[in-house]
C-alpha cells in the first residue's frame, strides 16, 4: 500500500504539470558550431551563427557542405540570437559552440555587456574560445576548413595547436576572458584571427580563402587597445605562462647563416613583484625546456660549451623579445595584459589598495625585468654539425 501510493500521487503530480518542460528533442535543435558578433550602425548587434547540417554528414548525394551560416540583428545580444529563430525551422542551441568571434569595431566599442549574455545563459559553456578579427567577424565563418567539417572544430584545433606548438597567438577561453574582465586589476587579451587569400597551388587561379590565427588583441578594461603581431604575442604567452611550445630562431654567433631554431617543449613562468626605491617593479622568471630544431649556422655544437652558449643566447633572445613587448604595452597600448596588477594585488594587498585608482598612470613606469632560463634537453638524432653549406666548408 505504501509503494502503490508513492506511484499514485507521482502520476497525479505529472497530471498537475502535464507535458515536459524545457524538453528539446535531438532532431528539433539547430546545433551552432561558431558564433560571430558584428556591430551595425547605431549600435545594433549582428549575430552570425554557423549551423551544422546533421544529415549532410550522412547522405552522400550532391556535395552539400555540412554547415550553413545564419545571421540576424537585434538591439542586444540575446535579442539578436532570439531573432535567429525567424529564419531557422529549429531552435538554435549553442551548447556545443566552440568559438565566439568579435569584430574589431565591436571590440573597440567595449565587450563587457556583450559577454554578459554568454555568462548568464545556462547553455553557453565556459570552455569556448574567444577571438577578435580585424574585418567583419561574419567573414571568418565563410571559408571552408579542408581538414575539419566546420568552423567550430577548426578553430578549436587551431587554438589547441597554438598552445602546444606555435604559440603564435594568445589562446583565451571564455572563462579566463570574463575573469579578467571582472577583475579591475587585469586587462583582458584575446587571440586574433584573420581570413587570408592563398592562390590555389594547382594554379587554376581559383582563390580559396583560408583562416589563419596569428597575433593577439589587447584590451584596456573592456575596450580594444591594439594588436600584437606574432612575436609579441609569443612573448606575451611567455609572460602569462599559457603556451607551452614555441619555435625560437637564434641568429648565428659568427659568419653568415640563417640561424639556429630551438623548439620549446614546456615553459613555466611566474611574476614576482618587489620594491625598487619606492617604485613597484616586477621580475618575470621563465623556465623553458626545449630541443634543437635545426642548425643553419657554421657553428659546431658537439662540444658542451657550445650548447651552454646556445642556451644563453636563446634566453637572451627571449628576454629581448619580452622587453620589446613590455615597452610596446606600457608606452603605446597602456594595457596591463601581462597581469602586473594581479601580481601586485596578491603580494602587496595594502599597497595595491592605495595604488589601484592611479594604476593607469603607474603602470607605464613599472620596471619589468624578464629572466629566462632555457635548458636544451636533446639535439635530435644527428650529432654536432654534419652538413656544411656554400663555400665547401672549412
Amino acid at each position, binding site marked *: *500500500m505504501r509503494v502503490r501510493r508513492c506511484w*499514485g*500521487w507521482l502520476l*497525479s*503530480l505529472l*497530471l*498537475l*504539470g*502535464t507535458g515536459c518542460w524545457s524538453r528539446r528533442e535531438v532532431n528539433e535543435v539547430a546545433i551552432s558550431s561558431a558564433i560571430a558578433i558584428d556591430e551595425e550602425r547605431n549600435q545594433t548587434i549582428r549575430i552570425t551563427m554557423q549551423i551544422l547540417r546533421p544529415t549532410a554528414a550522412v547522405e552522400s548525394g550532391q556535395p552539400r557542405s555540412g554547415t550553413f551560416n545564419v545571421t540576424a540583428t537585434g538591439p542586444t545580444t540575446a535579442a539578436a540570437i532570439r531573432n535567429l529563430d525567424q529564419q531557422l525551422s529549429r531552435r538554435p542551441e549553442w551548447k556545443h559552440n566552440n568559438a565566439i568571434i568579435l569584430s574589431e569595431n565591436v571590440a573597440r566599442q567595449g565587450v563587457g555587456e556583450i559577454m554578459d549574455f554568454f555568462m548568464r545563459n545556462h547553455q553557453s559553456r565556459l570552455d569556448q574560445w574567444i577571438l577578435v578579427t580585424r574585418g567583419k567577424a561574419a567573414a571568418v565563418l565563410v571559408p571552408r576548413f579542408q581538414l575539419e567539417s566546420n568552423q567550430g572544430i577548426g578553430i578549436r584545433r587551431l587554438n589547441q595547436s597554438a598552445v602546444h606548438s606555435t604559440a603564435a597567438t594568445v589562446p583565451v577561453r571564455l572563462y579566463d576572458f570574463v575573469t579578467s574582465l571582472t577583475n579591475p586589476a587585469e586587462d583582458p587579451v584575446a587571440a586574433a584571427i584573420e581570413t587570408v587569400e592563398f592562390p590555389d597551388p594547382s594554379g587554376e587561379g581559383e582563390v580559396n580563402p583560408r583562416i589563419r590565427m596569428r597575433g593577439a588583441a589587447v584590451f584596456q578594461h573592456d575596450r580594444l587597445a591594439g594588436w600584437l603581431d606574432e612575436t609579441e604575442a609569443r612573448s606575451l604567452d611567455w609572460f602569462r605562462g599559457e603556451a607551452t611550445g614555441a619555435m625560437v630562431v637564434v641568429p648565428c654567433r659568427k659568419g653568415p647563416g640563417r640561424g639556429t631554431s630551438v623548439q620549446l617543449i614546456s615553459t613555466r613562468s611566474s611574476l614576482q613583484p618587489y620594491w625598487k626605491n619606492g617604485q613597484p617593479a616586477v621580475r618575470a622568471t621563465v623556465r623553458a625546456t626545449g630541443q634543437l630544431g635545426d642548425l643553419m649556422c657554421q657553428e659546431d655544437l658537439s662540444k658542451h660549451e657550445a650548447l651552454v652558449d646556445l642556451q644563453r643566447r636563446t634566453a637572451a633572445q627571449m628576454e629581448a623579445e619580452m622587453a620589446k613587448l613590455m615597452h610596446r604595452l606600457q608606452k603605446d597600448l597602456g594595457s596591463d595584459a601581462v597581469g602586473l596588477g594581479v601580481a601586485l594585488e596578491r603580494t602587496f594587498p595594502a599597497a595595491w589598495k592605495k595604488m589601484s585608482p592611479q594604476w593607469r598612470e603607474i603602470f607605464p613606469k613599472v620596471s619589468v625585468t624578464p629572466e629566462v632560463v632555457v635548458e636544451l634537453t636533446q639535439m635530435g638524432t644527428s650529432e654536432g654539425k654534419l652538413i656544411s653549406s656554400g663555400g665547401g666548408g672549412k
Partner: protein
Amino acid sequence: MMILGLLLLAVATGLPDLAALVRRGRRKEAAVVICALLIGFLAALSWVMHLPVPTIGATLQWLATPILGKQ
C-alpha cells in the same frame, strides 16, 4: 487544470491516511489531518490563483526590519 491537479494531489496524499485513521477510530489525528489538508489546499490554491498573499520571505524581512534595519 491546475486546480484539478491540486485536488488529485490532495486526495492522493491525504485520503489513504485519513481512511486508515477513521477506520481505527482515531478522531483526534483525523481532525489534525483534515485541517492540514484544508490549510494546505487553500495555501496551494491561493498560490495557483496568484492571490496577493505575501510570500514567506517578504513576511520574514518585514518582521526582521527592527533587527536588520531597512534593506
